[in-house]
Every structure is written in C-alpha cells, then in structure tokens.
C-alpha cells in the first residue's frame, strides 16, 4: 500500500473487524457521547473530592462567554486575599476592567508590530501570526499581571459587566475589523518614517478606544470603596439602636481611591516575587532555564511571557510546597480538553476506559503530545488543595533535598489522590464550581504554575544549583508557544 487508499485496503480493514464486537459497540455509541459510555466503574467509585490540604476559597465566578480564565484565575487570587484581610464572606473584582485594558493594549501591540515591520512582506511568518491572532481573548499569567501592574484593579461594584463584557464576540469582531483597516491604511503610507506612522497610529487608536468604551462602559478612574463587615467579626462595642446585634453589619467607606491606589492598599501583592514555572518536556534540553516567547505579550513596554522550564517532579514539588506550606493558592495552566466529566467537575484520565472501547490508550509522552499538537495549554484555574497521604506530606515538607535525584525519588513515591481547583465556569458543576483533578491527569496535562521566587530559590540553593537570577534565557518565536490560555473548547 502506497499513497492511495484502495478498495482492497478497505476490504482488508473490513475483514479484520470482529462482527460481534462491532454490533455491540456501535449500538452503545449510536446515541451516546464517547466518554459517557466508557466510564470505568472501578475508578468512578473512588471518592476524589475530599482533600486534606484545602485552602478554603470564595464562591466561584463565571467567565460567561469570554475566554478570560487567565484573568479570572489572577483576580481570584487577589480577591481571596482581600476577603481574608477584610474578613468578608465574598468579594469580587472587576474582570471587565482588566479586559478593557487588555484589548486596548493588544490593539496597540498589533499596530506596533505592523509599524515596526512595515517593510516586511505580508506572508512573513511573524505578520501572519499577528493577522491570525489580532484580537484574541487569550493570554498568559504574565499578561494578566502586566495589566494589573499598569492599571491596578477595581471592585466589581465599580465597573459591572455590560452585556458585551460577558459576550465579547462582537467586541473582538469590530476591533479586529478596525485594527486591520488601520493596518491597511498604514501600509499604504509605507514611505513615512516611523515617527509619522506613530502619529497616525495615535490618531487612529481613538476609534479603538471609543469602540471599547461603547461596549464596556466608562472605565473608573477615581472611586469610593464601600463594604460592610458582619458584626461577629468586628469589635463588640459598636452599638446601634436600629438593628439586632446579631444582624448588625458595620459599614466602611474608603474615599477617592484610584485603581492603582486600591491595588496598593488592599491587594499589595508584589508580582515580581512570583515566577511562572512550566513543564515542557519537549524542551527538556532547556530545563532549569527560562524560555521567553517573543511577542506573547499585551503591554508593549513590559517583557514578553517567560517560563522557567522544569522537570515534572520539580514542578510538582514546588506546587505542593506552595499550597501546603506557604498556603498560597497556585495559578495553574493546563489542557482542559482531555478527559473531563463536566457535570461532576472531574478531570481524570483513568476514569475512562478507551482501551476496551477503541483499543486506544493515551500513552503518548507529554513531549510527543506537545510536539505533535495532541495537547496544548488552553485553560487556567487556581489550585487550592490536594489529597495526599499525611505522612508523605509531612516527610516531604520536613526533609531538605540536597540533590535532584533524591527529590525525584521522593516525588515518585508520593501517594497523591487528587488536586482541588477553583475554576471560573460558574457554580453549577462540580462541587459548587470547584473541580477535582486526578494526579495522573495533573502529570499529563498540567503545564504551568505560579510559584514564589523564594520557594524556588530555597530549593535550588540547597541543591547548589544556579538560582533564578543566574539562569540563562532562551528566546523562541511566538508560533512555537505551547498553546494560548483561553483557547479551550469547553466553554
């Protein structure tokens, strides 16, 4: 058999069929989704959503029809801190505020690429990359941080979601249309120098700003922060003749805040203390070094997205450490498209028995899966807990690892049942919107995590390895990125 598929070939395929099997399986699959009919009854009896390390989180939010999970996971991290500091039962930050500036910055970035490369042929791979990704919903941890650093954050009550903040299809449609129109306009003025082109850009960007303002509403610049605290949390001397003591709430107002002063006062997380670690085994020659993807960015004056690439066991060790010792929720990037039980909110590759249905195993290495585009990073959540054997955890946290091999063995022998994730797909599915990941799924489809620099450096120093600041950086083209977060298929 060479290139063509002949009728003889097909007949031989047909002859290899086990008729009895075909009859049975095709009946099973006729009206049912594949994953629904191959749930392994053994695995489904395991209780996965009980956790011994559990950072109790806030009620979950919903990204609605946006693909902004990468922003939500960051605002979840920040609102968690605010709620804890202020003793609030719940608190929500405005995601629309950040989405507004994300789009404004992406628009500027696109036009800058066009201006800087105005003499390049349109068929150039860089230009083609940007023409295919002109106004996407996607992003990365670093991009979400860029927005907060530059523009601060605001409570949701100050900038509520408009209809199109929840349904951004047409926002992106008009922005893309306008941006491409401006790009076409600029390319006709090729002969101008870069300065003059930028004057034109600034003039034209007004229309982008206007479209955004029409869709999202006005962006707050100065606001008052109001909230109320339940009585049980405040000093007992507060006295009110109008309310029963038990129901009393104390009202607080903080006037004339800017989004940045709000951030500095109530969030005050120094994002420079964090590093986005990744497990990209297809770049295993570059473990313990930084991979920087050119132009995977939104705010042009900041550095592009960079990952510290690590072997899985180091990656995993740091995540466990961050959650269980430092009690920090961990921003986590993964591939949500494989093995999801949406209703129960579980990602578990062992739950499904594709082997007996199709003679198919997901036995592909992570390296091959990335290289051959079987899997890519497309979703982010917050990891907030795990189910790990208590003595394992104790041993892990008490022991100092002096070299990588010992660490590797220790991680290998760990018994982790599952991980707990705070998702942003509303509270209807899973455990009120909290999802469970099996450990084997984590190994296969977990790619990125945000860890405190100090946690990483402490580990590295004890092993006498280069610390973060001494590590080399390798720069790669944007189209080699392992996927865009927000590019998932499940929302």
């Amino acid at each position, binding site marked *: *058999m*060479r*290139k*063509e*598929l002949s009728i003889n070939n*097909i007949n*031989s*395929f047909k002859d*290899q*069929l086990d008729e009895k099997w*075909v009859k049975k399986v*095709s009946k099973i*699959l*006729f*009206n*049912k*989704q*594949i994953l629904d009919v191959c749930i392994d009854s053994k695995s489904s009896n395991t209780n996965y959503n009980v956790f011994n390390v559990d950072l109790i989180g806030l009620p979950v939010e919903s990204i609605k029809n946006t693909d902004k999970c990468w922003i939500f996971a960051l605002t979840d991290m920040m609102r968690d801190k605010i709620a804890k500091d202020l003793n609030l039962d719940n608190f929500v930050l405005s995601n629309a505020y950040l989405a507004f500036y994300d789009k404004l*910055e992406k628009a*500027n970035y696109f036009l800058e690429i066009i201006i800087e490369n105005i003499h390049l042929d*349109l*068929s150039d791979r860089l230009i*083609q990359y940007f*023409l295919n990704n002109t106004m996407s919903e996607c992003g990365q941890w670093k991009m979400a941080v860029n927005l907060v650093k530059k523009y601060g954050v605001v409570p949701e009550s100050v900038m509520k979601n*408009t*209809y*199109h903040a929840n349904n951004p299809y*047409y926002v992106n449609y*008009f922005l893309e*249309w*306008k941006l*491409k*129109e401006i790009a*076409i306009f600029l390319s006709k003025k090729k002969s101008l120098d870069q300065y003059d082109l930028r004057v034109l850009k600034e003039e034209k*960007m*007004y*229309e982008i*700003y*206007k*479209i955004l303002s*029409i*869709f999202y*509403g006005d962006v707050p610049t100065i606001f008052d922060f109001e909230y109320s605290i339940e009585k049980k949390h405040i000093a007992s001397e507060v006295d009110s003749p109008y309310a029963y003591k038990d129901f009393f709430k104390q009202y607080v107002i903080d006037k004339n805040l800017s989004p940045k002063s709000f951030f500095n006062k109530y969030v005050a997380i120094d994002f420079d203390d964090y590093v986005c670690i990744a497990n990209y085994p297809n770049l295993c020659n570059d473990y313990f070094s930084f991979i920087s993807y050119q132009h995977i960015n939104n*705010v042009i*004056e900041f550095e592009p997205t960079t990952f510290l690439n690590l072997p899985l066991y180091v990656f995993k060790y740091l995540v466990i450490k961050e959650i269980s010792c430092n009690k920090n929720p961990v921003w986590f990037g993964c591939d949500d*498209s*494989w093995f999801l039980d949406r209703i129960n909110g579980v990602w578990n590759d062992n739950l499904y028995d594709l082997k007996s*249905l*199709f*003679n*198919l195993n*997901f036995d*592909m290495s992570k390296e*091959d899966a990335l*290289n*051959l*585009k*079987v899997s890519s990073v497309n979703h982010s959540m917050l990891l907030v807990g795990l189910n790990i054997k208590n003595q394992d955890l104790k041993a892990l946290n008490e022991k100092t690892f002096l070299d990588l091999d010992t660490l590797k063995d220790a991680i290998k022998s760990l018994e982790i049942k599952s991980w707990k994730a705070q998702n942003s797909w509303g509270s209807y599915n899973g455990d009120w919107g909290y999802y469970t990941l099996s450990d084997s799924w984590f190994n296969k489809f977990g790619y990125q995590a945000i860890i405190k620099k100090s946690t990483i450096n402490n580990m590295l120093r004890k092993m006498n390895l280069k610390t973060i600041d001494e590590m080399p950086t390798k720069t790669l083209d944007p*189209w080699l990125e392992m996927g865009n977060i927000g590019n998932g*298929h499940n929302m």
Partner: protein
Amino acid sequence: MSDFKKINQSLICAYQDKLNHDINFKTSQNALTNNHILDVVYNKNQEFKLKENFSNNTKMESTKITDQKNSGRCWIFATLNMIRDAFVKEYNLENFEFSQSYLAFYDKLEKSNWFLNKVIDFKNEPLDNIDLATILTNPVSDGGYFDMAKNLIAKYGIVPSYEMIDSFAAKNTNFLNKILDLKLKQAAKLIRSEKNLENCYVIKETCLSEIYKILVVTYGKPPEKFDIEISDKDKKSKVTKWNNITPQQFLKKINFNLDDYVTIVFTPFKKIMKNQIYEIEHTDFVAEKGNLNFLSVDKTTFNLMVLSMLLNEKSLWFACDVDHFFSKKKGIWDDKLYDFENFFDILFSDDISSLIEYRFVNSNHAMTLQGFDIDKENWKKFKKKFFEKNKKLNLDDFDKIIENFPIKKWNVENSWGDKDGNKGMYTISNSWFDKFVYEAIISKDNLKKFFNKPEFISTKEYELFHKNKKEKVNYYLNKYLNQGLSTKPIKLSLQDPFNKFKGSK
C-alpha cells in the same frame, strides 16, 4: 523603549476627553449596557425590502430542510442537496435525503490516509516547518470543499439517508476528532522515527485499519448493498424499485454527472488573477485524485455562470463568508441590515480585497442556491432601451446584459435545520452577494445549453448578437469557460490568505 510606542496615561486622558465632548457617544454606550449590538442597530426597513417572493425559485416545497447539527459538514450537505434536487425532479418524488454521514465516514478515512501520507512526505522536516505545522493542526477536522465531496461520491457512491442514519458522533464530531487525532499521531510518532520507507507504509496501513474500526463503531457500518423503492408523488402507483444495489450502482441511477461540474471562484482579492486555474497545495485528500483546483473568473462571468444554472432550474452549491451582516433569526444576509457606522459614528472599511489579504474575510460556509429575485420593471425597461438602441450587437455586448440584470436578492437553502430563517430558507441581498460570495459550482454541459438559449432574453433578442448561433455558442463557451480551463494551474500554498475557503460552519 520609546515613549511613543506605549499607551501612556495622558493619551488615555486625551481620548477620554474627546469622548466626553462627543454628544452621540453616550446614547450608543447606554444602549449596549444590557443589549446585544445587533438588536440595537437592526434596520427593520431592510427586512421588509427583502421580504417579497422570488421571481425565480428552484426550491421544491416538498423537499425537506436538513440539519448538520454540531458538525462542520456543510459542504457535504450542500452537495447532497444539489444532487437530491436533480434526483427528486427526475423521478418526480416528494422528498428524498441522501446519507451525509456515509460520506463523512469516508471523508474521515481518506483524511486520515492523507494525513499519514503527509507525515511520511515530511518525515525529515522539522516539526515547525510551516506546512507541516499547518497539517498537524486538526488534520481530521470536518471542513471541506465541493471537489472533496465530488471525489468521495465518485469513489464510494451514494446511499439513502435511512441506510446510514446520523449517529451521535456524526452529529457531534468534537471528541471523535480528538480520538482520531490521537490515534493518527501515535502513528505519526512511529513514522517519524522509522528509517525504512516501506515500513512507514506498513505503519500507515495498521493505523488506518484501527481508524476504520473506530469509524465503524462511531458512525455505524457503511451499507454495501441495499434495496430502494421510490414512488412518484402524483401517480402513487408509479413505483421504481432497485433491489440489492451497491452505493456505486445507485449513483448511476441518478442523472447527475459529477465530472461535468467545475468549481468557479470570484474573489475581490486582487492578487488572484482572472480566467486562471489555481491548484491548492497539499489538498490531495483523496490521494489518486490529486490536489484540488478551481477556476478564477471575473464578477460578470461568475454571475453569468450562476444564472445559467438557476435559469435552467438547477440548484447549485456555493460558498461564502457568513460572519458578516447576518441575522440568524430572520435568515438574512444583507450589508445594509445593520447601521454600524451611524451607531459608532465611525467608518468601517469595505475594501474587501485588502480585508481578505489581512485575513478578516474568508469563505467559511457552503449552502445551496435555490433562486433569485429580479426587479422586473427595470429589466423590461432596460431591455427595451438596450435592444432598440443597439440594432446590431457585438458578441462582447453580452456582458452588458449580465451586468444590468437587476437582481435584488438570492434564495438560499441552508443546512442548519428549519428553526431559523424562513423555515430553514435564507435570503442574501445582491449587494451582500457581490461582497461575500466567492465560490460556486457549475455544469459545463448546462452552460452550453444556456448559450444555445439564454432564458432571460428572447430568441429574437439573442439573434441581435451578431454571428450565427453555432459560432456564438463556441465563442461564449471559449470566452467564459474554456480559455480559463486550459490555463496552466498556478499553485497556492497552504498559507495563502485565499486558500482557506474550507467550508466548515
């Protein structure tokens, strides 16, 4: 970093200040707080303008609207609708439906074979080779072209819908595609590390046999022989029966010569030449048929060819970009349906050629054209004036007839079920048609018939075009079709902006 590159606070303040002085801005912003933009810019007048009946309608009331559900099989549906129309007319049936999933089954199998062929061809190329990277991205996705459907039908024949009903996976291809993708890439991995070329083909065959198995249980087993009984809708006793026939034999019973059909393309994209054949690289999805190609023509020729089909009561496959100026509920595509520019107080470019080049506009959906509506009064007036003034006409004056044929709108059969639009039928305004319809299928044979007797002018009027009939027909066939068909194909790469006109919606 020059300060000029970034967005600084003073720039934002300047923009905001300008907005605050814009008196119309606030109204637009408020309107969208709780509403969908298409609901607040909708032009009801335009809907009324497009409401009347069609002067030419090939759609038969009794044939049922089909539904592709959550799959990208529009190109198969549109092809089979066209063949159905021919079949139903020939045997005077009430309705008939061919199995779309029968073709989708073999489409997946052939695409799998195609993918593995490409992996073998590219086995020594790095994975970031731009063509290979494109091939590796969703190799067995649902989308396709008319010529793919044509090749599949020619090879595998055709079966009635009840012989192979849509299974769950046929209607919802998402996870099935992932499974096939995984299986194929497991083989791709082996191929890339295999030194011996012959062994690569062995790996391919083993993988395809597994793919076949998965397809059989997800789509159901394709029928090999079946019985058919059809009856005339007026004379119920007139029954036609075929017993124990194969899909290929059934195809022969249908008077539809696939080889007679050519894909024509009109694109405003200036880099595509007219009267020229193009070949798209790496589209040999059915290996023995080679790459797909199309004939690029000018707008007059495109309209003429489309009309030659509809005027002879033949429905036809066509493809367009459905993402612009669309009301799904009303079933209307019309570029004046929404008043965006007034709403935003911003102009939007309609330089379609550049917008194609910059990848904002591209054909993405195939449907069936079922008729059109003309302004009869204007047509009469034009003809009267035209033929009075020009007692003797040059052959090339025929262009003027086409250019002045006052089409108002087009009648379209879609495959999105009968809930939206006018019970599944949709309307395209003529100005939208000019901007966003890029591809159609025409019959060469029919074109010849048309030039013997163009249906929209009388025999007498046609005689005014100088030269005798035989010479005239030859001249026109040559001018509009054969000259272009005889050109040497120009290759288009997989990355060409015009290349991605795969229908998939």
